[in-house]
């Protein structure tokens, strides 16, 4: 009789959660390491196109970013849906680009100025007209090294 009674006294034992913090910390550290804080807040829609013949941009401090695309939904009331250029934190006109490039060049050491690359982060639905205008301005500003920033993936995905 007593043989069977012994087990039924405690119910199910509680699962130890002592290692839970360790697991969560591990995840936390992962995200802390891969996180890159954005230094500009995006005011334009920015769905990048796909490409698979990509090169990586290594030296982050030698990259100038130019964003372009339709204004984000919350700005559309004010600025409409026409694609626009964004430099730093605000919308800009095409002819502000030269000034922007000049300022960026000024802020870098002289021997590094030739290594500056301009990364174009352009929404994939933007018309090429705007992109060509940007490229014209970059040529005038003598910032000839450019990089079309893309997501890695099959280029055929762009056609959908």
């Amino acid at each position, binding site marked *: 009789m007593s043989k069977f009674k012994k087990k039924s006294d405690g119910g199910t034992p509680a699962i130890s*959660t*002592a290692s*839970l*913090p360790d697991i*969560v*910390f591990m*995840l*936390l550290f992962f*995200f*802390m390491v*891969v*996180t*890159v*804080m*954005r230094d500009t807040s995006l005011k334009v829609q920015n769905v*990048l*196109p*796909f*490409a*698979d*013949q*990509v*090169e*990586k*941009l*290594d030296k*982050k401090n030698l*990259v100038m970013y130019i964003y372009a695309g339709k204004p984000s939904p919350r700005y559309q009331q004010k600025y409409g849906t026409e694609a626009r250029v964004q430099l730093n934190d605000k919308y800009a006109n095409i002819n502000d680009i030269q000034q922007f490039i000049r300022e960026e060049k000024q802020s870098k050491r002289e021997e590094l100025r030739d290594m500056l*690359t301009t*990364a*174009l982060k*352009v*929404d*994939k*639905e*933007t*018309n*090429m*007209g705007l*992109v*060509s205008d940007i*490229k*014209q301005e*970059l*040529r*005038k500003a*003598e910032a*000839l*090294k*450019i*990089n*079309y*920033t*893309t*997501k*890695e993936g099959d*280029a*055929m995905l*762009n*056609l959908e």
Partner: protein
Amino acid sequence: MARRAAPEVNAGSMADIAFLLLIFFLVTTTIETDSGITRKLPPIDDTDQKPPPLKERNIFIVLINANGELLVEDEEMELGELRQAAVEFLDNGGGEGDEACSYCKGAADPASSDNPIKAVISLQNDRATQYGKYIAVQNELVAAYNQLRNRESNRLYQMDFTEMEAAYNDPDTEPKDKELLKERIGRIKEMYPQKLSEAEPKR
């Protein structure tokens, strides 16, 4: 009685704190993409100098219209076929004498390019072309160059060209390896120079 064990700190809320931090980082994370297709823009040419004449057959014209449709050498083409067409054009090697190409494996069609060194791809787009489609075409053309460069690089150095470039750009590579890589990359680039001209879009 005098010696009591130190009371254990309750670590139950540790998980909550860690979760809070975790969620904060999850929300603020934007895994930044900074890879892309690198291009070099031509400098503005103020002089009235005429560009040297190019033979018609050494130019490969790719047009993209406002709807993203391709016209390649006066024929409609799907994007999927563009890479192969570009490879065939670049690797044709139809030249003779001085212009012969010793490493080309193409069909040597007299109507196509003489030599990869002379071959130019001209890309023209409309102002209303979508950027995504333009990038897709750029990607295919760069892929064509990379395919040929990889082939030659594998033949000469038993290594992919794209791999060599990645190693060259990697800051961890030893300087003396870099010298060698630079020389090899330069050599391959000489064999298949990337001559991709972009006209300013019409209208």
